[in-house]
């Protein structure tokens, strides 16, 4: 798919040929794009400077609120240990998200194809979803030997449900006239899935992916909290708990910063994926000029 500029993609063509590109619109679009980055970054820098200033000015002790410079210092000093923990959490989050996608899509497709299967299994999916993961986690930790596998299951339970429900709704959302057309042309079930149902479900799936991405991280962190794991092969949540026990507040902030950063990266990745997949056709991703 060749990428075109936003303006080019959103302009309408008419029977007399393409409409001329409006230079004013182009400029405004570019300005808005730049502003959408510059404004939040400026605000963030200002807030961090203000934080630094207030901590220093009021001489707030570091075990209450550490200055951003101290947090940065801690990040550098404990880089090796924090990176190892980050890598653990990243692995846990992305693996659980991947399994949630596979499980959610397969089960969703099964639900969409067979009403009896949906009626029989859906209540179990709901039970799994509505029971807080914090409440199930201790049991899973007892039953599953490997801590990593137990944490993975917990994170998966949280991330799986939105993918499942949205896949089911998405697969059922195909235009009924297009369905009729596929019937008339005697399409095979596979052709129907490949060329009609799956593309129709994509917007729903991408919306679920954004939610599930965040939930996978929350699941991974919460599960680790419940597990209360310690030692080398543990994630960022364990660093937070550990720092809290030792009253190493700057380290706690550093770990927290990394968790947030991971959350932001996941959000950006899923948003980018959504734009790549839907940007050229779906209303949710098309920027219109007014």
């Amino acid at each position: 798919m060749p990428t075109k500029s936003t303006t080019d993609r959103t302009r309408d063509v008419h029977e007399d040929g393409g409409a001329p590109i409006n230079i004013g619109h182009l400029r405004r679009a570019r300005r808005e794009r730049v502003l959408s980055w510059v404004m939040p970054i400026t605000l963030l820098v200002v807030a961090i400077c203000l934080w630094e200033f207030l901590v220093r000015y009021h001489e707030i002790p570091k075990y209450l609120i550490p200055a951003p410079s101290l947090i940065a210092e801690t990040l550098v000093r404990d880089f090796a240990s924090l990176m190892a923990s980050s890598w653990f959490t990243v692995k846990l989050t992305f693996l659980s998200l991947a399994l949630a996608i596979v499980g959610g899509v397969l089960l969703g497709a099964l639900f969409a194809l067979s009403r009896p299967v949906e009626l029989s299994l859906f209540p179990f999916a709901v039970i799994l979803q509505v029971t807080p993961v914090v409440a199930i986690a201790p049991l899973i930790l007892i039953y599953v030997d490997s801590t990593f596998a137990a944490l993975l299951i917990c994170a998966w339970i949280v991330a799986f449900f939105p993918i499942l429900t949205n896949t089911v709704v998405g697969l059922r959302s195909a235009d009924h006239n297009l369905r009729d057309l596929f019937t008339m042309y005697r399409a095979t079930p596979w052709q129907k899935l490949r060329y009609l149902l799956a593309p129709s479900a994509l917007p729903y799936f991408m919306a679920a992916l954004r939610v599930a991405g965040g939930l996978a991280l929350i699941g991974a962190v919460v599960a680790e909290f419940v597990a209360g794991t310690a030692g080398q092969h543990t994630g960022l949540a364990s660093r937070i708990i550990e720092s809290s026990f030792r009253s190493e507040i700057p380290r706690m902030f550093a770990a927290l910063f990394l968790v947030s950063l991971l959350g932001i990266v996941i959000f950006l990745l899923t948003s980018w994926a959504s734009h790549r997949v839907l940007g050229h056709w779906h209303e949710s991703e098309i920027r219109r000029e007014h």
Partner: protein
Amino acid sequence: MTGDPIIMMNRVSKEFGDVLAVDNMSLSIREGEFVTLLGPSGCGKSTALKMIAGILPLTAGEITISPPKGNAEHDLGFVFQEPTLKPWATVFDNVYLPLRLAGVGRGDGEPRVREALKEVGLSRFARSYPRQLSGGMKMRVSIARALVSRPRILLMDEPFAALDEMTRTKLNNDLMQLSDDHGLTVVFVTHSVFESVYLSTRVIVMAARPGRLVADMPLDASWPRSEDYRTSIEFTEETRRISETLKGTLHADEIDH
């Protein structure tokens, strides 16, 4: 101009729950005819069309379509009231759909798709997406898709109802030209008396509750028709004749005073 029977409906009925949508309808359509099913809402004209297309199963009766002599991938083309295009696919891919479903490779299909797009005047828009096109252009894509598999029969369910008058007139003329060029048999559903008189060689008037055939009215004016026909006395006369018939079928509560 017209040949052997191509679509035979024999005592066809369709029920939706308790509602009798089509009651005991028999109709024989000959090759090359341009037949309009005309009637008020709920008279079963769209249902009848979808039964011919094989989209809806019949409750009773039978529909026979004479076997094709040549080998087209699909013998039927269908155009809905809405353009019914896949928004995620380009104009090219939308038109290619019937061929793809019939197992025609992209390489073999490409010249056919280009030809179909050329016929509806959209050659330059093969790579556009549906949302970039006007309503009339989308409908042309829909027509190109219906024609790309070289069907003998074109089924159209109020295809121009949502379009403005000028686009509609233009598409009416283009449709007549296309169906004449291809020797198509067209079954066209509409509730516009003017459109039915202008386009068709035969008008089937239907009534509602239950949906049934009430009159079979051939139109003798030479076909395909020119713009002059719209302003001719013959057109006015035929319009009046068919309007009267249609009025006679309406229930008291369906007539606006």
